[in-house]
């Protein structure tokens, strides 16, 4: 149920990185992801999961990211994915 989820951390993340809002789920980040070939890392899904309160699953995915930045190079909305990944590590580690 979407009503019960706690979005405090996500709102924090979004306030720091407002470009997150502009994702249109094209999947370029996931398609280009080197890690994604071997693990289930998907930047698009990480954001969506955090938005839906599935923090644990999302963080599990982020763990396999190698910070290569390819997703940032391809993003058609120009989202600073690398910065967002760093923010996620910081904000969600606080809890």
């Amino acid at each position, binding site marked *: *149920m*979407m*009503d019960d989820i706690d979005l405090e951390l996500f709102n924090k993340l979004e306030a720091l990185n*407002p*470009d997150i*809002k*502009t*994702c*249109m*789920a094209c999947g370029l980040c996931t398609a280009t992801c080197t890690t994604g070939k071997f693990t289930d890392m998907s930047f*698009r*899904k990480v954001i*969506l*999961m955090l*938005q*839906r309160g*599935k923090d644990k699953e999302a963080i599990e995915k982020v763990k396999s990211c190698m910070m290569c930045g390819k997703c940032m190079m391809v993003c058609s*909305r120009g989202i600073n994915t690398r910065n967002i990944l760093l923010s996620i590590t910081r904000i969600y580690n606080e809890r």
Partner: protein
Amino acid sequence: MNEHKILIIGGGPAGMETAYQLKKLGLKPVIIERSDKLGGHLAQWDRLFPASDDAEALLEKMREQCIDIEKRLNTRITNITKENNIFHVSLSNGNSYDADAIVLCTGFDLFKAERKQEYGYGIYNNVITNAELEHYFKTHNDERINEPKKIGFVHCVGSRDVKVNNTYCSKVCCATALKQACEIKEEFPDSDVYCFYMDLRMFGKGYEDLYLKAQKDFDIKCVRGRVCEVSENIEGKLVIKAEDTLLGTPMKMTLDLLVLMCGMEKASGIERIQNMLNIKSNADGFIETRDTFYGLNHTKEEGVFVAGACTSPKTLPDTIAEARAAAVEVFNYLKDNGQQTFSLRF
């Protein structure tokens, strides 16, 4: 040329623009409108996508251009017969006209939301339609819209849905939904606004900008998935179910207000006029055009032209462009035929 009389059936944007252009071309258009004023659906709307322009300003401009044009309001067509390329048209007010050409500008009906029973329109108080929200923006008078905290928009209501026998896309609802989402967020800044879409078809000039603006500046949350059912909880709030198809997980959410984006359907009662003119419909109910590229303003009946949403769902710019094209096609048709003048008969 200037004595030629052209009957325009329908006084919405398509009819008004066709009439105005025909008059500029030196012909004599007559608008037949069943309601008591010109404007059609445009008269019910507050602001227009993509940039939330004032609907009334456009309407006033279009009405002004029709001031000198002959019109018959509160009038219906009762009979049409054709003889030697002349249409003998009888009207409900007892008059009759002889016309050299007819332009059908009969527009569309909004899909009746109660037909999608699972959305609970007419059952739950807080389920409203796009047209009702637009009316609220115009009048700020709707008890159901009372400081909503969570608002949902359902795209494709009555469109792309074999269950209601409408397989086509209504073209205007995606942009309307995002426009209205921004406008309601502007009015209730503390609210969360969700748009439930299958595809966001932002094809027109400025539509993608609207999409980006909705996400970035208004924090509209677009969820890919069609709402499957709506129910009401004990507090009278709406509980909706959908699949979040981008994650592949089911989704349940409580809302204070749900707006149904009703699509376009063929205008009711239009078959009556089509039968008089021997004009067929496509499988979707809209009027058949001569072809799909070059004869879009023509029907298969010589002398009967079409413009606007009577042939398929259309945006306002499309409708206005098509009305202008129709006027030129009528002009060329009459010029080529070199028909004789037929005067008004009462």
